[in-house]
């Protein structure tokens, strides 16, 4: 009987959600900040089947067809879901201490899709994130791009697929002090760090040449090597390097290696970007920066400046923000843009840096990062100006589906904290055989 009830409810839920997704819904009357294009007062966003059908203005005088559900959001602000180009949510882990370069490691195999940290990111308006392993290695493994969808049972429910149907992700590299361990094969100096990486890429070039020379003849193919296969993806430009780097000289070392091996690159953290902004811009390499409340905490970040954003903007580089969660709290990701403007960025570029710039860094500019016809219906409804400390995220939508609602007590708890806020997500269906509640972690 219980099972029967369950299947009935699942069916009901399926019907409802399918109905909800396919129905034309318009969010009407808000200030719409599409990121690509000017802000629209009295604007509207029309969505259906998880996509944006269109965006426009003069909402008050607009007449909608009878099959359109109209949601009145007057007085609110709608902007694209935030894209976090560097996060550690989902209890992610990466390479172990057995070696400094481990390209074969997949964060895919380590993420807890029910982690409270993922819910907190939804509460902060983040809809897409680059989940990175740590920075204690020259290469700590492959990163994973996820959509912060709701009710994920397995990691598969969060994946994003490219046009060849491969799940999307990059690879994490780091230089500077984090990986300087001086034992167990780890480098002891900066020069050694670079030498180890160059050596590995030269091996990958040779591996790639063997594959090309085999011309499809299986007997001439090199033995499968997961690390080499991954680095060949990097050499082929299929996998972007997200490179943790702080000091000006370390930043330039990364640019030098890029020149030598031709890989695609996003600079991450770039604490001293203000010292080498012109070089970064000239290399046409995007920079993903972080806003920290005070300098220091480690030797390489004593010279970090809030002005990194404005310096990069001025130099003409593509600049985005990241949380590096848990370093900064995903629930307050919008602070980053606020501090960008505080220290000289234009309002437009600061908001671009929360959305479109990061979408470009993750090769997702055709799908997310702006409110445009045909893009994924990932958007957030804010109580006011995105750059104000008094503004809160009220609702977050991924693929047209609401994944966070501040008016829902469970979501509210996640957004503000309190007893039980740190628990993993509980499965919402409650007529199920057996114990299905996610426990504490």
């Amino acid at each position, binding site marked *: 009987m219980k099972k029967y009830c369950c299947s009935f409810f699942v069916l009901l839920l399926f019907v409802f959600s399918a109905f909800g997704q396919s129905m034309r819904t318009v969010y009407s009357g808000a200030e719409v900040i599409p990121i690509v294009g000017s802000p629209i007062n009295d604007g509207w966003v029309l969505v259906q089947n998880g996509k944006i059908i269109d965006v426009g203005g003069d909402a008050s005088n607009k007449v909608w067809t009878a099959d359109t559900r109209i949601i009145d959001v007057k007085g609110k602000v709608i902007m694209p879901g935030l894209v976090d180009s560097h996060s550690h949510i989902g209890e992610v882990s990466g390479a172990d201490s057995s070696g400094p370069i481990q390209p074969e490691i997949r964060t895919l195999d380590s993420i807890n899709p029910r982690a409270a940290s993922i819910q907190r990111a939804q509460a902060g308006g983040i809809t897409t994130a680059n989940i990175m392993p740590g920075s204690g290695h020259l290469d700590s493994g492959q990163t994973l791009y996820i959509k912060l969808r709701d009710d994920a049972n397995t990691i598969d429910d969060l994946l994003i697929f490219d046009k060849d149907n491969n799940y999307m992700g990059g690879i994490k590299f780091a230089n500077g002090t984090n990986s300087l361990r001086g034992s167990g094969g780890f480098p002891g100096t900066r020069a050694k760090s670079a030498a180890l990486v160059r050596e590995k890429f030269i091996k990958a070039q040779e591996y790639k040449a063997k594959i090309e020379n085999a011309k499809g003849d299986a007997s001439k193919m090199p033995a499968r090597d997961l690390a080499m296969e991954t680095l060949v993806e990097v050499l082929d430009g299929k996998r972007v390097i997200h490179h943790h780097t702080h000091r000006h000289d370390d930043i330039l070392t990364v640019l030098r290696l890029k020149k030598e091996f031709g890989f695609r690159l996003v600079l991450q953290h770039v604490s001293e970007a203000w010292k080498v902004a012109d070089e970064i811009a000239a290399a046409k390499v995007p920079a993903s920066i972080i806003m*920290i*409340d*005070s*300098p*220091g*905490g*480690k*030797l390489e*970040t*004593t010279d970090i400046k809030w002005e990194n954003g404005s310096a990069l903007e001025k130099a003409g580089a593509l600049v985005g923000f990241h949380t590096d969660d*848990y*370093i900064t*709290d995903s629930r*307050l990701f919008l*602070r980053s843009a*606020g*501090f960008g*403007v*505080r220290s000289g960025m234009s309002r437009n570029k600061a908001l671009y840096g929360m959305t479109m710039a990061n979408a470009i860094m993750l090769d997702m500019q055709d799908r997310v990062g702006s409110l445009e016809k045909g893009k994924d219906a990932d958007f957030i409804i804010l109580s006011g100006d995105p*750059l*104000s*400390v*008094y*503004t*809160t995220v009220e609702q977050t939508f991924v693929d047209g589906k609401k994944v966070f609602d501040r008016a829902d007590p469970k979501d509210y708890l996640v957004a*503000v*904290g*309190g*007893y*039980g*806020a*740190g628990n993993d997500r509980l499965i919402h269906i409650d007529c199920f055989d057996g114990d299905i509640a996610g426990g504490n972690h």
Partner: protein
Amino acid sequence: MKNLIINSKNLSFIFAVLLTANCLLVTVSAQVAIKGETVYTMAGKPIKNGVVLTAGGKITNVGPASTVSIPSGFKVIEAKVVTPGLIDAHTVIGLAGYLNQPHDQMQVERSSPMQPDLRAIDAYNAREELISWVRSLGVTTIHTGHAPLALISGQTMIAKTVGDSVDEATLVPTAMIATTIGNAARGAGSKAPGTTAKQAAMLRQMLIKAQNYGKKKEFSRDLKLEMMKKIIDREIPLLVTAHRSRDIMTAIRIAKEFNIKIVLDGVSDAHLLTKEIKESGFPVILHATMMRAGGDSESASMESAAKLKRAGIPVAIQSGYEGYVPKTRVVLFEAAVTVAYGMSFEDALATITIDAAKVIGLDKRIGSIEVGKDADIAMYDGDPFEYSTHCTGTMINGMVVSTVVR
């Protein structure tokens, strides 16, 4: 001729001398008028088009421009918004430095779990970069000292965020004794205290010893008990950092048993215990609003400040202790966030000005813009809490000590 050549080294020396002379001049005899479009005195309603007069390091007059005229000879500074200098009710900067290397991390000594004899003044680096950082963001007074990382980690002190030496900076050399009940104060391996119950037992035993200290006619001095005796005699409060509700209740239980003054610190679970904390009468120095929730602080809520305020509990907001990045938080930003989570603007400002002054026992001297108080002022080009506003100047003891627009 050689002697007359002025190289850059000499030049900078000359500048240094001139600067010092200038500063001394300002310290001794500065007469400054600060005009603010809005002046939040924190002693009455905000003043539109207000004027604050300072002389001899003190506030000599404050009021609307229509009633307070600026005497001749006063240097005039203008700002959109003027507030009292901000007070960080609990930090570790000065003992903890921004390099985060062993030589600049003096906030905890791990050879023994109870060391009330460790004086903060013996470890305070007045020239620490983090101090000038918070000063540039309006912070003029810090309650700093040993970190919440041992059962009794040592003493705390109160300092102005200026001065080249601890003596120049210090207001109160021994303010409180830093005590922690919770996971952060557990001993490593099999070292005591291994549990919170053990922490309570050890703390009680220490207080019992202190009760008896000095009662015999002849006794040898014991620096630890000498300090704990000050707690027993209610000369200074015990600063008890506790996050979980059970640990907060332990702190209150022990305070009642020994009839001592305590200040409740951190208190992530305070939102669950507003009735109990209110009844205890003890003030609260609440964790940083943006503190990471996890471990003992997993139930931290950004609404706690508002809930405590509504319950009528005196509350200050702290920057707290940070082990990594950011190496310190900034109370201006921590108070700002509470406004999005239920606090009124002025209540939030009070947690880092007048209410913070009350909790650290210096409200007669700092925390508001009133005649006779120290001329500690922060100036801004807009709403102090807004992300895109800048702190444009900071004054301490009547002297402008920061003009960085940050």
